[in-house]
């Protein structure tokens, strides 16, 4: 017996001892046999799929042998296993081409987070108390299945709701099938920075209910309305790559970036020209640009096609949107509007982006339609250097799953008693944290008799759960992803587990499948697969007959090749699929002025929450790397802050770090002031993500949550939350807040203050 075999056997031995108390030791043991291919000190690179945001970047996971201390039923054992040590981008992946953002880099801390739920738990104390008791998986799944079987359809649909983050993979397909087999309504999808408005606009203008993809690498002129596309919006890594090429990747040629917004974002800071526009008037500004282009015959009006027909007055040359009129309503100078319009018409290919705050206004849809029309007028739709739509891989069942109700409608139904919910399943969605108080989400969820969560962490929503069935992390489970945007190829990413599970967790899809089989009947039949792996294999097999990055003769070869490469992509072959189809006519939209929540006299500031570079919508706040990573504009760590214009601050006697009270009609919060030169005098901004009450040791009770003072106003056409339409007032508390700046404060400021 050589040394390696001896170590292997002793590791198995210790695992056996450690796992003695488990229900079926042979099941447990198999997971802990040291992996053959691992040689101590030698790294293995395994494919992965990043799930830190919806972009769906491909990963390479560096796996090395290590010793993990794990607890099973109160017994501690030291297990030799392959551990993920570093995440890099997959160089072959069409979305991120070997690159990775900060969230992606911090993905290791999801798997190794000390606050993960390590085994199934049942609530023992009152809701919200956080008192739990460990239970076994058999018992947990049995309870879930019996709860589901006992639900009786009260005339209409089954009183069951599935609340999930928007999933663009086969987990979403599985949930959809599961619910329809049970006779329950479709899943309720929730994320705070939802993209409903933009998808709807793209459907109306271009016939694609999808997020757009921008060919920045070939663009010569980019005007972006509000979208933080280099930071947090859409597919940031792909957009950064394209942007880098636009700037310095083409010898002798350099594209221009113009950013239009009310608060300088990380993207705005990179712009060659930064244009201030009053919040919510972005669509008017886009029409002002279109007016100049039409009037000066730089492009024919018909060039905009269907997208132009969506705008009232387009065929008449937008007579109401002269530069002077638009200047008055937006705050941008008329001469500048004229110059920008000429520049963008002269420097083809030009492309226009819109996202973030301009869509989260009451007039959000019309803003997006105006920008779409401008893009079409410039001839940039479906062209190199323009905007296109990522083709979808030819897989069955993948057609966009039916839109479920919104969280708002779900909660209204529960509270009014019109659509009672007796059982609620929650997966990676945290609406209790990320909804305005007027939606009364917590109150509604507390009325639900049974809540089960599949979350890896106890957060503000899952703390209400009666049963938590913790999911594996994305490095421990089968992952797939179908990117909605960020590439011109059809992509289906796939990765087997990069490492064995660290804790006594189970993959959500597998739990759902087992529960479905226990419920039996039609539900079991609708989900014929034993495991999620089987389901994925069947789904990917349908790609084998199509030309793409993987070609193999037999299903087994294809399946192992797809796993090895980290997915399947169509290559250049399917690029033509991105050609844009027209949509049958709908009534043209009038771009209107936005409506705000709160009177100007009492609430003088527009309140602008924005996606934090560190925490996104708050889901990354439990990662210590993200907490300590300095925010790129403020250099703040472990903090929240209110950004305020220097002149406004001077007028109100506010100094950097002063604790301010920010109050709207719907609530108030306290946060330290950050004097930010790039924000309009009548706007204050706050990053979303801090202010958690229950989200582990790193995030809980830190900073303030701006979502909790937002009004319930919604976008007029789509009903999406207009999160940028609240007005606030600001008062000094006389105290100092906790503002931790890596940059040691904005050192250049005090001197400039004195000069003024």
């Amino acid at each position, binding site marked *: 017996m050589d040394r390696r075999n001896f170590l292997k056997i002793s590791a198995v031995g210790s695992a056996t001892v450690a796992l003695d108390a488990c229900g079926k030791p042979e099941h447990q043991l198999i997971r802990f046999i040291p992996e053959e291919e691992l040689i101590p000190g030698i790294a293995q690179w395994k494919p992965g799929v990043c799930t830190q945001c919806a972009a769906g970047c491909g990963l390479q996971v560096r796996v090395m042998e290590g010793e993990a201390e794990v607890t099973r039923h109160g017994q501690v054992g030291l297990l030799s296993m392959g551990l993920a*040590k570093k995440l890099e981008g997959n160089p072959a992946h069409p979305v991120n081409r070997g690159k990775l*953002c900060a*969230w992606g880099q911090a993905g290791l801390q999801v798997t190794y*987070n000390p606050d993960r739920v390590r085994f199934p738990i049942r609530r023992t104390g009152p809701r919200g108390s956080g008192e739990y008791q460990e239970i076994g998986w058999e018992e947990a799944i049995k309870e879930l299945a019996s709860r589901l079987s006992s639900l009786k359809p009260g005339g209409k649909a089954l009183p069951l709701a599935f609340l999930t983050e928007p999933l663009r993979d086969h987990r979403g397909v599985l949930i959809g099938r599961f619910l329809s087999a049970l006779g329950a309504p479709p899943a309720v999808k929730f994320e705070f920075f939802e993209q409903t408005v933009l998808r709807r606009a793209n459907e109306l203008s271009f016939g694609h209910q999808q997020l757009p993809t921008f060919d920045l690498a070939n663009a010569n002129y980019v005007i972006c309305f509000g979208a933080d596309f280099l930071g947090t919006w859409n597919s940031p890594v792909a957009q950064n*790559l394209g942007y*880098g090429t636009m700037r310095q990747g083409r010898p002798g040629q350099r594209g221009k970036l113009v950013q239009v917004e009310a608060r300088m974002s990380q993207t705005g800071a990179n712009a060659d020209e930064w244009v201030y526009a009053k919040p919510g008037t972005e669509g008017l500004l886009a029409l002002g640009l279109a007016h100049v282009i039409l009037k000066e015959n730089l492009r024919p009006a018909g060039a905009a096609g269907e997208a132009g027909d969506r705008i009232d007055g387009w065929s008449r040359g937008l007579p109401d949107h002269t530069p002077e009129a638009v200047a008055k309503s937006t705050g941008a100078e008329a001469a500048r509007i004229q110059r920008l319009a000429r520049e963008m018409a002269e420097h083809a290919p030009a492309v226009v982006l819109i996202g973030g705050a301009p869509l989260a206004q009451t007039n959000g849809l019309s803003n997006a339609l105006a920008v779409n029309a401008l893009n079409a007028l410039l001839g940039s739709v479906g062209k190199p250097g323009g905007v296109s739509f990522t083709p979808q891989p030819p897989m069955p069942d993948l057609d966009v799953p039916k839109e479920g109700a919104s969280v708002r409608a779900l909660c209204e139904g529960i509270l009014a008693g019109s659509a009672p919910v007796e059982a609620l399943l929650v997966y990676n969605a945290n609406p209790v944290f990320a909804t305005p108080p007027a939606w009364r989400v917590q109150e509604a969820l507390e009325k639900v008799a049974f809540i089960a969560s599949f979350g890896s962490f106890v957060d503000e929503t899952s703390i209400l759960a009666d049963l938590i069935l913790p999911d594996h992390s994305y490095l421990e489970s089968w992952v797939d992803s179908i990117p909605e945007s960020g590439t011109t190829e059809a992509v289906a990413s796939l990765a087997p587990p990069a490492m064995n599970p660290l804790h006594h967790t189970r993959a959500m899809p597998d739990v759902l499948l087992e529960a479905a089989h226990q419920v039996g009947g039609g539900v079991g039949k609708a989900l014929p697969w034993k495991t999620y792996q089987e389901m994925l294999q069947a789904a990917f097999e349908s790609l084998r007959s199509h030309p793409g990055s993987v070609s193999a003769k037999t299903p087994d070869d294809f399946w192992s090749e797809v796993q090895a490469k980290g997915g399947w992509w169509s290559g250049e072959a399917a690029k033509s699929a991105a050609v844009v189809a027209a949509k049958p006519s709908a009534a043209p939209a009038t771009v209107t002025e936005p409506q705000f929540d709160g009177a100007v006299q009492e609430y003088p500031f527009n309140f602008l929450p924005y996606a934090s570079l560190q925490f996104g919508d708050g889901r990354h706040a439990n990662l210590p790397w993200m907490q300590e*990573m300095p925010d*790129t504009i403020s250099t703040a760590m472990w903090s929240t802050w209110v950004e305020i214009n220097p002149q406004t601050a001077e007028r109100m006697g506010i100094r950097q770090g002063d604790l301010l009270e920010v109050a709207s009609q719907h609530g108030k919060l306290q946060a330290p002031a950050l004097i930010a030169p790039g924000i*309009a005098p009548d706007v204050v901004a706050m990053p979303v993500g801090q202010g958690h009450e229950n989200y582990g040791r790193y995030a809980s009770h830190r900073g303030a949550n701006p979502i909790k003072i937002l009004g319930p106003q919604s976008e007029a056409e789509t009903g999406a939350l207009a999160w940028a339409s609240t007005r606030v007032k600001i008062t000094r508390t006389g105290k100092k807040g906790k503002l*931790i700046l890596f940059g040691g404060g904005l050192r250049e400021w005090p001197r400039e203050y004195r000069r003024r």
Partner: protein
Amino acid sequence: MVIDEDRCTGCEACVAACHAENNIATVGDDQAARGRAMHWIRVERYYEGDFPNIKVKYRPVPCQQCSDAPCEPVCPTYASYHNPEGLNAQIYNRCIGTRYCANACPYLVRFFNFFNPVWDKPLDLQFNPDVSVRSVGIMEKCTFCIQRIKAAEIKAQAEKRPLKDGEFNPACVQSCPAEAMVFGDLNDPESKVSRLSRSNRGSTLLSELGTHPKVTYLKRDTWHNGQNA
């Protein structure tokens, strides 16, 4: 190394990648408030002008790996020394924590461990086994990911071939989504990094100090009707 400020978008991917690669401790809010946070690479942000005519510039700053490094001669124990390849190396087990080097460094890229780092279990499983974990009283800094350099050299040696340009990259360069950073052999005039470092946009930080940094910054370009400046 060459860092192109015209490409850098300030996304901080380099900062996170560096933490993950080099086992850099997170110190927590109280220590961070005392200025003890450790970031071997940081993204500096510079404002110009008043609202609404604001211009901002980002500049990622790792150790500049000076050819004439002020941190080296001040070390009484030769912990900070110039390695044969020209890197400012830090030998942790020589360091006695006088912090002279950090005082001497004009770029503020040296960080001191005021406490033993704390990793709430199982966060310690994320450690890169190729990089030692520093303890209290030790000065640490950017190494240009020397563990990756060594690994690539050993591999090339075993395969009896010279290192290829761009064969490997430090963690920050590998992750950079806008491809703003380029790493390579400055001694090879044909390497990509050498060619870029001779760009007319190039300069080094605080060059008047005579430290001769090995990081060249390419300044933010301006737009002239679609042409490069």
